[in-house]
């Protein structure tokens, strides 16, 4: 293992993480809910009366974040190397399995670990593990 010091951004990442933590804290303290993106988005697919608008507004806030950012500064670099077919496969897998596993990086990784939920700790270890293995296979065995 070699640490890539040229791309490592400890302070920006820590500050961004604190902002994400503030968002998660606000949501549980004010709305009484877990800020889990896959759950909030997925819940829109089986709309229940009185349960739609807050979800749509949360998602709208996330989607509009780059627009708000642009009012202050140019957007940071974004590099998407995956091909279109790979993005479709990856998207389908992420959509099905985050719903099946009841959460993703936000719900399990941030909120779940924050409240020391054993299920979320196991879930986070599981998706980190398979994420590491997948990237290892793709980059070092298949050589994509």
């Amino acid at each position, binding site marked *: *293992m070699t640490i890539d010091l040229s*791309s490592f*951004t400890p302070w*920006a990442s*820590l*500050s*961004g*993480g*604190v902002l994400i933590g*503030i968002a998660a804290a606000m*949501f549980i303290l*004010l*709305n009484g809910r877990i800020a889990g*993106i896959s759950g909030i988005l*997925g819940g829109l*697919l089986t709309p229940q009366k009185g349960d739609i*608008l*807050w979800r749509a*507004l*949360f998602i*709208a*806030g*996330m*989607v*509009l974040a780059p*627009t*708000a*950012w642009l009012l202050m500064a140019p957007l*940071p670099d*974004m590099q998407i*190397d995956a091909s*279109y077919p*790979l*993005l479709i*496969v*990856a*998207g*389908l*897998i*992420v*959509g099905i*399995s*985050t*719903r*099946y*596993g009841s959460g*993703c*990086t936000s719900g399990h*990784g941030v909120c779940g670990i924050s409240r020391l*939920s054993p*299920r979320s700790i*196991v*879930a986070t270890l*599981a*998706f*980190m*593990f*398979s*994420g590491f*293995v997948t990237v290892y296979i793709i980059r070092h065995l298949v050589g994509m």
Partner: protein
Amino acid sequence: MNKHFVSAFVTGLIFGIGLLVSGMANPDKVLSFLDIAGAWDPSLAFVMGGAIAVGAIAFTFVKGRTHSLWGEPLRLPGKKDLDKRLIMGSLGFGIGWGLAGFCPGPALVAFGTGAPKAIVFVAAMVAGMAIYEVIEKSRTKAVN
């Protein structure tokens, strides 16, 4: 407008800006974290650390309470068992995450930049979530 809807939007916005600040809206940076055998970028661990440090304060505060500060019922996941769905779903999510470097939150933020590849990923992810709902519906029908 109801203040809960305002806070849902603001929470989503802060969450999205946090993802931009942290660098996690960039799939290339996420993949550099997952590539432990290559030039490793530990930034994602700092994002999680910052978010969990703040989140933990809020979740400790609400422990034992039944309502949020605004009087909303606290909706915390009650499940305790480490079942097959949690583990298989999370392992699956990690595979999809490792294939493209997108998890649901960053994908929505990238979608908001208008990047065509992010739009395709989000469309596939929402389709995946819809497929999950269809499978669940037929499964519960079969059980009943």
